[in-house]
């Protein structure tokens, strides 16, 4: 901007003094220097983030013969899709992907709805014990769920509500382990994966929306729920997008709850976790038993599995990226 001003003046007066020329040059240099520094920073950052992905892509297309060829760095000599084919088959990729999307999609919706309602309650309603309750919400962010493994498992192995279910079920709860119910129940009641953080996000966001907006609606005779859905939610789109994306991605990547709640997790994260095992067994079956499996070949296939697991997220991110970046900026969440 500064250099433009100077240029205008230069054009106007047509009498270029020595001083003006010096300023012109200095400003030009300054802006060039800034461009270069910025470019370096961006390239560096992108490199750090993208390099592992490029490396994975490069390995995924390599042939088995290319592993031991020392002349090959990144570009494979024998392009092949065999790795992908192998992984598709052993992982049952598309079925697991579908299950992952169903599971992450439904918990995402339930979590967003429940946490928005709870966050609204904390932001706008004055009731006894509000601060204590909110303190407890923050507390759930601090306590790692891993510390509650056995109680969590028992809770859903014999699921019961105040002993009501066992009244009708021969004195024992129902077994929800091995079903999606634990995920759905926890996210619908606002205690799902990292729900504490989402409640916090919504509360902060709703607090930032001017009270007058609601007051006007309330004066017009709108009910609390009406106000919430027609005034608050449309204004909370950035928070909603942020929470939806985070909850989707975290559920998609989660292995702790998926392996705890599901016996044989047929979702991407679970399949990825057991990829070394399933692919390894497949390889030794092909080679006719024995421990003839080549560890480098195995790790190449596992690498392809990792790539295939994150690919849907990358594609998804490309579509929602613009909204997401804006939303995160506006909710003030970083990371």
């Amino acid at each position, binding site marked *: 901007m500064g250099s433009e001003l100077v240029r205008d003046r230069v054009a106007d007066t047509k009498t270029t003094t020595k001083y003006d020329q010096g300023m012109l040059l200095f400003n030009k240099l300054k802006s060039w220097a800034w461009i270069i520094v910025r470019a370096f920073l961006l390239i560096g950052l992108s490199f750090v983030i993208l390099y592992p992905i490029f490396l994975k892509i490069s390995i995924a297309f390599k042939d088995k013969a290319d592993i031991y060829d020392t002349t090959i760095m990144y570009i494979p000599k024998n392009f092949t899709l065999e790795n992908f084919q192998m992984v598709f088959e052993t992982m049952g990729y598309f079925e697991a992907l579908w299950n992952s999307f169903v599971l992450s999609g439904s918990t995402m919706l339930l979590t967003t709805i429940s946490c928005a309602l709870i966050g609204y309650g904390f932001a706008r309603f004055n009731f006894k014990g509000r601060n204590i309750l909110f303190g407890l919400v923050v507390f759930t962010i601090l306590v*790692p769920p*891993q510390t509650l493994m*056995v109680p969590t498992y028992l809770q859903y*192995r014999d699921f019961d509500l105040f002993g009501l279910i066992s009244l009708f079920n021969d004195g024992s709860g129902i077994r929800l382990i091995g079903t999606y119910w634990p995920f759905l129940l926890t996210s619908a009641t606002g205690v799902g994966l990292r729900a504490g953080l989402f409640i916090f996000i919504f509360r902060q966001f709703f607090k930032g929306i001017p009270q007058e907006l609601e007051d006007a609606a309330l004066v017009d005779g709108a009910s609390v729920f009406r106000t919430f859905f027609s005034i608050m939610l449309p204004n909370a789109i950035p928070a909603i997008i942020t929470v939806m994306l985070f909850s989707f991605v975290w559920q998609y990547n989660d292995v*702790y709850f998926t392996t*705890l709640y599901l016996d044989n997790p047929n979702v991407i994260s679970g399949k990825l976790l057991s990829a*070394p*095992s399933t692919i390894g067994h497949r390889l030794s079956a092909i080679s006719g038993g024995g421990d003839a499996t080549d560890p480098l070949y195995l790790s190449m296939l596992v690498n392809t599995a990792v790539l295939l697991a994150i690919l849907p997220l990358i594609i998804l991110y490309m579509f929602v990226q613009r909204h997401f970046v804006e939303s995160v900026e506006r909710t003030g969440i970083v990371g």
Partner: protein
Amino acid sequence: MEPIIKTVKMSKHFGSGNKKVELFNDVDISIGRNQLVGIRGRSGSGKTTLLNLFGALDTPTSGEIYVEGQLLNSLDSRQRSELRRTKMGFVFQSYGLVPLMTVEENIEFGLRIVGIPREERPDRIKRSVEIVGLEKRIHHRPFELSGGEQQRVAIARAIAPGPSIILADEPTAELDTKTGFYIIQAFHELIKNTETTIIMTSHDEEILSLIEHVYVLEDKRVAYEKNETTV
């Protein structure tokens, strides 16, 4: 010597009517001390349920279970959790490591929950990490470790308090055979160096062939099978 776990006419059924599932009928087994014990069965045969019964996380429909001579049936829920806390270590399919804590902190955390005094903790951490062979990794966080290494941390955490029984449900299910062998090796190391008994389930024949004492779940019964192992 008194067996570490003994069952007398133990039965376990789920549900009733035509939905009734009879998993075990009149099972009588006794498991000796300081052994590595494998439990084999296909998926749905009741391996997890059996471990839950041994770990006082579930109660039999009828019959008795003794752990170190103590009858489980007579304990209330507080005594059960006390028994689990002092005598048992669990290794689940879900590793359950706290992501923000290093290997060392994860194990220390387990010790704190069990109530091991602060002065004893460093020693115990060191020994358990040695047994699973992760000395070089104690300052790493779980996401910097491979699946097999994470499982070994979970095992180190389970053995650090010095339980008399370790119950491990499919500890090698997610690992390739070679990594699975390392886990079995760590288990052998453990029974050689301590008084612990390890009971683990698996459906992997290769893994089970490395274990000397195997119990097979079949037709609502539990049969003993001795393996000739070279390990």
